C-alpha cells in the first residue's frame, strides 16, 4: 500500500509540474479562506474576482488569465505554505487575496523575496503600511487603522463622551482599537481583547461592558464572530441601552445570520453597495444576477484587485517580465474602481473616502446596507511616513 502511495506521490509531483515559464498566459495566485466558517468571505472574494475576469473577457493585455485558488484555513503557517507553493510550483505572476492580517504578515516574505507582485484585497496591517512596505506590495483595501479611525470621527460627531472597546487579540484587532483611539476624543473606559479565533462566547466581556455604563461601545469582529457578538449583545438587552459602533462587523456575508439584530447599527466602510458610479452599478447588478446574493466589501476589493492587475498587464502589453513598468502603472491606480476614484500613497495603500453605512430594510423586506454620509474624504493612513519608499 505504501509503495503505491509513494509511487503515486512521486508521480503526482512530476505531473503537477508544468513546463518551465512559457509565457502564454497571466498566472494569478489567489490565497483566501475557503474552509471553516469564514469560507463565506473567501467565497465572496473568489466570486467577485471571477466576475471581474468575466467582465475583462478572461483576458488581460491579450493573454488568457489563469487563476489558482488556495485555501489558507485562516492559519498563518498554512497561508505561508500556500503562498510558497504558488510562487515556487505554479510560478504565478501576481499573488492576490488575504483576508487576515496575520496570514498576510506570514506570507509577505516569500512573495517579496521572489519579487512576485502581491496585492492584498483585504488585510492591511500597520507594519506593511510602515516599516515593512515594499514596491512589490499593493493594497486594494485600506490600512487597518483607517476604517475604525473613521468610526472614531463619527462617534465624535455623535457627541459620544466615553466608550468601551472590544476586539479580538490578533494583529488586526490591535490595529483596529488603535485606529479608534487615534481619532476618538472621548474617554476610553475599558478595553477588551478576546481570544481569537476560538472564543465565541462573550458573556464575561458583555457583563463588564454593562457594568462600566459607557456612552457607547465600539467593536471589531469580522466574519462569523460578528454574528455571535451581535446576537449576544442583543440577547443581553444591551442594544437598547448602549449604542454600538462597529468596524467590519456587519456586512453582506454576515447580515443573513444577524438579521434584524443589525438594524440601526452604524459602521464605516470605504465601499458600500449603493455607491453611485458606473463600475459599481455594473459590479453589484451582475454579481446579484450571477450568484443570487449581494456582494460584500471583501468582494468589491477583490474585484478592484483584478482590475488593478489588468491595468498593469495592459500597460506592458502582456510582457509580465517587466515588473518595474507594471509597478509604475499600478501606482497610478488607473482603472475604474467600484469605490470611485482613488490614488495610491507612497506605501501603495489607497488614499480614499470612508462612508457611514447603516442597515435598513428595503422595500422588498430584505435587509441591506446603505450609504448614509461621507465621514472623511481622501484619507491617508498614519503609517505612510514610516515607509522608506518615496
Amino acid at each position, binding site marked *: 500500500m505504501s509503495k503505491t502511495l509513494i509511487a503515486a506521490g512521486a508521480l503526482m509531483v512530476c505531473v503537477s509540474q508544468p513546463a518551465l515559464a512559457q509565457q502564454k498566459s497571466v498566472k494569478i495566485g489567489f490565497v483566501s479562506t475557503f474552509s471553516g466558517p469564514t469560507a463565506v468571505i473567501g467565497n465572496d472574494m473568489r466570486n467577485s474576482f471571477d466576475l471581474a475576469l468575466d467582465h475583462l473577457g478572461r483576458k488581460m493585455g491579450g493573454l488568457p488569465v489563469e487563476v489558482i485558488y488556495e485555501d489558507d484555513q485562516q492559519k498563518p503557517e498554512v497561508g505561508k505554505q500556500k503562498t510558497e507553493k504558488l510562487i515556487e510550483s505554479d510560478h504565478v505572476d501576481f499573488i492576490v487575496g488575504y483576508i487576515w492580517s496575520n496570514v498576510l504578515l506570514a506570507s509577505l516574505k516569500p512573495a517579496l523575496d521572489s519579487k512576485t507582485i502581491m496585492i492584498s484585497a483585504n488585510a492591511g496591517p500597520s507594519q506593511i503600511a510602515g516599516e515593512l512596505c515594499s514596491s512589490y506590495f499593493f493594497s486594494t483595501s485600506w490600512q487597518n487603522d483607517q476604517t475604525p479611525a473613521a468610526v472614531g470621527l463619527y462617534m465624535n460627531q455623535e457627541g459620544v463622551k466615553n466608550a468601551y472597546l472590544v476586539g479580538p487579540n490578533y494583529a488586526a484587532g490591535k490595529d483596529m482599537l488603535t485606529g479608534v483611539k487615534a481619532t476618538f476624543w472621548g474617554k476610553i473606559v475599558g478595553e477588551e481583547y*478576546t481570544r481569537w479565533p476560538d472564543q465565541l462566547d462573550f458573556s464575561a466581556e458583555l457583563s463588564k461592558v454593562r*457594568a462600566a455604563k459607557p456612552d457607547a461601545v465600539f467593536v471589531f469582529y469580522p466574519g462569523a464572530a460578528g454574528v455571535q457578538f451581535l446576537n449576544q449583545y442583543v440577547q*443581553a438587552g444591551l442594544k437598547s441601552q448602549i449604542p454600538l459602533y462597529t468596524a467590519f462587523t456587519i456586512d453582506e456575508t454576515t447580515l443573513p445570520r444577524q438579521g434584524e439584530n443589525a438594524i440601526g447599527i452604524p459602521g464605516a466602510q470605504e465601499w458600500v453597495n449603493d455607491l453611485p458610479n458606473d463600475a459599481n452599478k455594473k459590479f453589484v447588478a451582475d454579481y446579484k444576477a450571477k450568484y443570487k446574493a449581494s456582494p460584500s466589501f471583501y468582494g468589491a476589493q477583490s474585484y478592484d484587485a483584478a482590475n488593478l492587475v489588468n491595468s498593469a498587464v495592459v500597460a506592458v502589453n502582456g510582457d509580465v517580465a517587466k515588473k518595474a513598468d507594471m509597478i509604475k502603472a499600478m501606482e497610478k491606480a488607473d482603472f475604474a474602481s467600484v469605490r470611485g476614484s482613488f490614488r495610491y500613497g507612497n506605501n501603495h495603500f489607497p488614499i480614499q473616502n470612508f462612508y457611514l453605512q447603516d442597515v435598513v430594510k428595503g422595500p422588498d423586506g430584505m435587509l441591506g446596507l446603505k450609504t448614509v454620509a461621507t465621514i472623511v474624504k481622501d484619507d491617508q493612513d498614519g503609517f505612510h511616513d514610516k515607509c522608506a519608499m518615496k
Partner: protein
Amino acid sequence: MRDEVILLIEQCLNGLQFGLLLFLLAAGLTLVFGIMDLVNLAHGSFYMLGAYFAATFAALTESFVLGAVLALVATFVVGMAVELIAVRKLYGRDHLDHVLGTFGLILFFNELVRLVWGPAGMNLPLPPFLSTSIEILPDVYYPTYRIAIIVVALAVALLLYIVVMRTRVGMLIRAGASNREMVGALGINIRLLYTLVFGVGAALAGLAGLIQAPILTAQIGMGENILIVALVVIIIGGIGSIRGAFIAAIFVGLVDTIGRAFLPEVFRMVMTPAAASALAPALSSMLIYLLMAVVLVLRPQGLFPVDGK
C-alpha cells in the same frame, strides 16, 4: 461598591452557565469513558450536530422547542448508529487507537456538515420570550436565555443523578464503571447497554450544542475547542465519575470566566496597560490547563477517582 458586587455576581452567573454547559458535554464523555473505557474525541461532533439539527428542525417546524426536541432525538439516533458502525470496533483497544480512530470521525463529520449545510454556519433565532433579559436583582438585568440554560442544565444534572444513583439501569452503569466483568456475570446484554449509553452521551452533547446554537450559531468545527475543555473537566473530576464531572465542570466554568473577566484588571495594577492587555488574555486562557496540571500532580487520578480504575 454595589457595582462591583453586581459585576461579580453577574460574572459568577456567566461562569456557572458555562460550567453547566460543560457538564452536559462532560457527562456523556465521562459515561462513555468510564463504562466503555473509550476516549471519544468525536464527542464534539455530536455537539456540532446537535446545533445544526436544532437550527434545521426549528426552521422547518417554525418552533424552537419542537426543533430542539427533534434535534435531541436525531443526535441520539446518530450516536447509536456511529456506535454500531464504527465505535464498537474500538472497544478493548488501547487509548492511542481511540484517539486516532475518533480523530478520523471528527474529520469525517466536519466535512459531512460542510457538504450538507455549507460553510456559512446556521443561525437559530430565539423565540421572543427568551430573547430578552430579566431583572434578577433590582436594576440588574441578565439574559433570560442564559438563565434558561442554567435551569435546563441543572434539571438534566438532577435527572442524571437520580438515574445513576437510584435506578436499576444506573446501578448497571455504576457497576460497569468499576467492574466490567460483574455486569457480564449478571447476564446483562452488554452490547445493548453500550449502544444505549453511547446514544445517551451523544444526545447530551447534542443538547449542549443546541443550547449553544442561539448564542454561537451552528458552525463547522465548533466542537473541537470545547471538547478539549470538556476532557479537562472529566480528568479533573476523575474519569467515570458523574459527580466529579459536575463539580469539576462548575469549577472550570467559574475559573475560566472569572479569570477572563478580572485578570486584565489585576495585571493593569502591576504593569503597563499595553502589556496587561497582551498578557492577560493569554494567561486567562491558560488557567484551566494550569488547574488540571495542579490537580493531576497532587491527585494523579483526579478529584473523585472511581474505584477499580
